[in-house]
């Protein structure tokens, strides 16, 4: 039973870390919105999906037939990430404007906001399945099928650990995720807008009294969360070379699991939780078979909430030092 895991421990570890980095980036969006609004942004999974779609669109428009090299590759990768990030950030802000702000202004319950989020999520999925994939990607009748994306870079082995080969794209993904994380951490802890975000999540009423523009903070929160999800989407396309209208659903739940694992509201926790979940999922799949992957991830969620509901690092967008 454990032979499989022990026999190829390193490959599973590397796959787990890569997947975990993507979970972590998506989890940041959940954690930030939750920290500020106390809302599970259920439609965040669709924001991620939009990121993968935008990247896929860029690859299609570039008309890549064989993997790029040199400067073209660097430009292509940047374009991929920019397109994913911009599309996701834009749609996250639009989502906030349409589906959440009217509710917030009226002081609606969180249940109402969650239902609104589920509605937005269904709408966006169907929009892609029925309109955007058939017409924009020109795949009529195939809106619900998985969509392949051309390979834009040669996936050469860079080095190997314990018999496992680490490829260039994997290194890029991991480094990019860490880099985004560091930037976000600096933004939240060192800048004026970051102070506003922390103040709002601690005590919105007092924050307003101190002159924080709450609407702006909420907008920025959605923008950053969307940006992270979009970059995650681009990296996902780079790694797995597929996307689908419903790609966000399971990944979104798992990213939320990652956010809870790390301690919701805690930015560093989100990435840590993502990596942890990615590893557990892959090790679990190695032991029990890959069909059980999702069951393992959700069982971990239930167990963590039972025994340590505040997550590994504790809930602390609020408690972060001023």
């Amino acid at each position, binding site marked *: 039973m454990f032979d499989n895991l022990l026999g190829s421990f390193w490959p599973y570890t590397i796959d787990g870390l890569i997947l975990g980095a993507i979970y972590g980036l998506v989890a940041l969006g959940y954690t930030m919105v939750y920290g500020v609004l106390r809302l599970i942004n259920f439609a965040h999974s669709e924001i991620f999906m939009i990121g993968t779609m935008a990247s896929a669109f860029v690859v299609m428009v570039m008309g890549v037939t064989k993997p790029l090299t040199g400067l073209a590759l660097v430009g292509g990768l940047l374009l991929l990430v920019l397109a994913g990030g911009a599309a996701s950030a834009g749609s996250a802000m639009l989502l906030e404007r349409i589906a959440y702000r009217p509710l917030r202004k009226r*002081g609606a319950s*969180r249940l109402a906001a969650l239902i609104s989020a589920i509605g937005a999520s*269904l709408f966006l999925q169907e929009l892609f399945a029925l309109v955007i994939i058939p017409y924009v990607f020109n795949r009529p009748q195939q809106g619900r099928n998985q969509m392949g994306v051309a390979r834009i870079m040669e996936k050469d082995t860079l080095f190997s650990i314990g018999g496992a080969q680490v490829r260039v794209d994997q290194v890029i993904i991991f480094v990019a995720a860490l880099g985004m994380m560091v930037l976000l951490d600096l933004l939240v802890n060192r800048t004026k807008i970051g102070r506003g975000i922390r103040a709002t999540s601690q005590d919105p009423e007092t924050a307003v009294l101190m002159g924080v523009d*709450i609407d702006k903070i909420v907008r920025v929160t959605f923008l950053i969360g969307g940006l992270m999800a979009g970059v995650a989407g681009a990296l996902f396309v780079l790694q797995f070379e597929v996307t689908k209208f419903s790609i966000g659903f399971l990944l979104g739940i798992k990213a939320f699991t990652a956010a809870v694992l790390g301690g919701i509201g805690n930015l560093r926790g989100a990435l840590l939780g993502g990596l942890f979940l990615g590893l557990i999922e892959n090790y679990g799949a190695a032991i029990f078979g890959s069909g059980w992957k999702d069951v393992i991830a959700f069982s971990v969620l239930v167990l963590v*909430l039972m025994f340590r509901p505040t997550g590994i690092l504790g809930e602390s967008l609020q408690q972060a030092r001023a």
Partner: protein
Amino acid sequence: MGAFTDRVRDRWATAPGWQRWTVYVLLFIGALLLPSESIGHFMSPYSDWASVLFFPVGTYIVLAIGLNIVVGQAGLLDLGFVAFFAIGGYSMALLGTRLGLNFWEILIAGVILSAISGVVLGGPTLRLRGDYLAIVTLGFGEIVRQTAENTDAIGGPRGIAGIPHPPSIDGVVIFGVDIFHYGVLDPRPYYYLLVVVATLIIIFVKRWEKSRVGRAWAAIREDEDAAEVMGVPTFKFKLLAFAIGASIGGAMGVVWAGKTISINPNDFLFMLSATILAAVVLGGSGNIPGVILGAFLVAWLPERFRGLSEYRIMVFGAALVALMIFRPEGLLPSRRRKAELAEGTGGMGAMGAEVPDPQAHAEPEGAAK
């Protein structure tokens, strides 16, 4: 419309018992007459009206009544309600095909099994905050489905076929319908069975709502901390709500599987949980006539307008958003619930980052802790 429903409600609240019973009996008879051919052509031009009445209409109504106990009465958000429906369905399929038990025995077993699974799920998780509960239940729904999909002993992805029908009593023919003959051809006997089950459930639920249990649920929904301080054992009552909701879902699963012959894991997708939740909220959570109306609309509209079926989920999603923006209390809310929502809470407290308007007297979440 508000003034009209208010007058109807005032009249209803002071109506003498015999009037109410007359209305109840008329409604029951109306439900029995519903699968008539004369309205079938209009109500369901694309498929057999009586079948549509059994599934999705009747099924959704019973599931929505069950979920309403959890969401509407106790104010707990459950996103994995389909799990209990699945447990009921699989109970019927497994106990019927493997052990050869009959429908009535399995109905009891299914209700007990799903109540137990409700307690097993609720026990460790009901102490959590509201929105964590939502995610855990969502996870649980997926765990149940994927476990069914991965376990070959219960059919794996192909599911189970050859589920027996309820035992028939032939020869009781009323208006040309052999009402206790549970065969393959005529869906009407199943529909009558469903009406009877639904009526029993509604009676039970109504009695609970007005008892000490119902008042405890309302107290928990409005302010859990205050309820605890006032001596309501909140955890116990939340667990009870979960177990009762689960057993209604399980009962419906058994009844549904008794008609449908074969089931597989894809009958129990998250989409069904979301749809039932939408039915509860659309109709007006906490109010049984509202919930029935909501479930009827959610089940019937897509069947009626099958021509536009491709776009129906998209429209449904947009409608949910619009509904939450313009009428968050639902189409037919209970008065109490409406008052709670006007105060800005209503189950899970308000959102954070809340700068209350002078008009909306909302409490920010931080103040409740």
